[in-house]
């Protein structure tokens, strides 16, 4: 011990604090991941127990799908009562339904986890195992519920509003230097401006900055929220990525110059090739945002599925000895997922900027084609 103290005493102060910081960071990170793994594990065990009322085999696929898909309540864990039956414990979320021109609003707890029918006027609502709400009398139902994904997104929106409006206010009035939170926010904003918008869009980048910045941080924060145990798989939902990709499609095509549309409708090919080329070009217009949609959806969902699969290994093997192995892999994949969360936000924004830049093409560059 004295020897260690001695060597420590000879370490430069900065090096000492850096190594201490690294240690604390690693410790906190590992602890968090350990607990995240644990809570997933408990999720799994509950799902397993609840499904095997008759000693059924653990169904990894349906369990994983259940976690990857959207839900009408925010499931936290299950509790076992004295009889040994399991009761899911979850945060109820508002159900908003539009049926027969009537708006019905109630909490998801009214369904009692699928066991009860909710009567509103002449309408009786039921929910199935997959979270589909149907009307018993055969009326069509439009579901605008605040689902787990929507709730998670609203939290992300709130976080974004707090972080960035506060960031914008944390500038020193006289010198214009960033203070506090702006010191973190500004480099990220400048990254989007200098490494995404300007290289791909060029001089007209300013008009597109609000969309690119919002998309980048919206996707990133939602990706990160999805990595929190019990979190929602918001950015891994096809509806979400389709919506975001649709915005890029709209912005791209509304910014399209004459040259851009000229490429689509009057390509530089012999006239007899037009019947082939025009449809191909039109497919190209739609394929770009579809690629965006699928890329984000697939990456994020795949990450969630990998982590859940690794946790499921414990239950598939029915052995606690599997836990350290699975958790080791989960730790590793979680680190990668942290990277992927930022990377996919970057890729989505980068490609959006690239498509916008292509749509802004001027005739001068056209001569090269």
């Amino acid at each position, binding site marked *: 011990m004295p020897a260690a103290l001695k060597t420590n005493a000879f370490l430069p102060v900065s090096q000492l604090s850096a190594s201490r910081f690294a240690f604390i960071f690693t410790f906190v990170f590992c602890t968090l991941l350990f607990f995240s793994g644990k809570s997933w594990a408990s999720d799994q065990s509950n799902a397993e127990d609840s499904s095997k009322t008759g000693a059924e085999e653990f169904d990894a696929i349906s369990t994983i799908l259940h976690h990857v898909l959207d839900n009408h309540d925010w499931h936290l864990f299950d509790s076992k009562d004295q009889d040994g039956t399991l009761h899911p414990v979850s945060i109820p979320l508002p159900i*908003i339904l539009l049926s027969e021109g009537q708006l019905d609003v109630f909490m998801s707890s009214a369904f009692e986890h699928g066991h009860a029918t909710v009567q509103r006027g002449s309408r009786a609502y039921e929910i199935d195992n997959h979270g589909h709400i149907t009307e018993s009398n055969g009326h069509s139902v439009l579901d605008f519920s605040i689902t787990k994904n929507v709730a998670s997104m609203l939290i992300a929106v709130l976080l974004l509003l707090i972080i*960035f409006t506060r960031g914008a206010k944390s500038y020193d009035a006289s010198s214009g230097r960033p203070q506090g939170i702006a010191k973190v926010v500004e480099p990220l904003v400048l990254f989007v*401006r200098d490494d995404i918008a300007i290289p791909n869009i060029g001089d007209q980048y300013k008009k597109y900055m609000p969309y690119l910045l919002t998309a980048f941080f919206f996707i990133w924060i939602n990706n990160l929220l999805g990595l929190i145990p019990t979190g929602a798989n918001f950015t891994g939902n096809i*509806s979400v990525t389709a919506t975001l990709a649709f915005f890029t499609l709209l912005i791209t095509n509304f910014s399209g110059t004459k040259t851009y549309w000229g490429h689509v409708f009057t390509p530089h090919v012999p006239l007899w090739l037009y019947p082939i080329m025009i449809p191909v070009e039109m497919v190209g217009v739609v394929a770009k945002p579809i690629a965006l949609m699928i890329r984000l959806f697939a990456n994020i969902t795949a990450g969630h599925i990998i982590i859940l699969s690794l946790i499921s290994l414990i239950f598939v093997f029915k052995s606690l000895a599997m836990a350290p192995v699975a958790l080791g892999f989960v730790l590793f994949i979680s680190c990668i997922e942290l990277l992927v969360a930022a990377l996919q936000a970057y890729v989505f924004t980068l490609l959006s900027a690239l498509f916008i830049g292509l749509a802004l093409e001027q005739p001068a560059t056209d001569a090269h084609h």
Partner: protein
Amino acid sequence: MKELIQPNLGLVVWTSLSFLILMFVLRKYAWKPILEAVEERDQKIAQALKEAENARKEVGSLSSERDKLLADIKDERDQILADAAKTRDFIVSEAKHKATEEASRILETAREAIHNERMAAVTEVRNMAAKLAIDVAEKVLGNHFADQAKQEEFVRAEMDKIKLN
């Protein structure tokens, strides 16, 4: 598995709504102020750099101006020094000339005065000698005229002396 790629209208609506509201709120309260602050600062920095460059140039031109001024002053000083040396030489030579002249004039006067004095002294001596001679002659005449023989002897002696002269 099919549910994975089934779009959900509710989620689409909520996402669109939230995203658009978020974008418009952040555009006004975050992106615009942040980007403007950054741009303003960039401009300030660019302006400061330009000003520094200008100041540097100005200092350069000032120093070259100063060098030119220094060179001019040096030239002028040399000129003045040269003039002063010339004047000094002139004054010295003039003074020397005048002094020589004066000295020769004084010498001349002195010589003349000496000559005059000498002439006066010579004249006086002559006069005195003549007077002495007359006095002597008077005395001799007074004492020795009674005794003829002695008179003759004296005259003879005197005459001898004169011969000797």
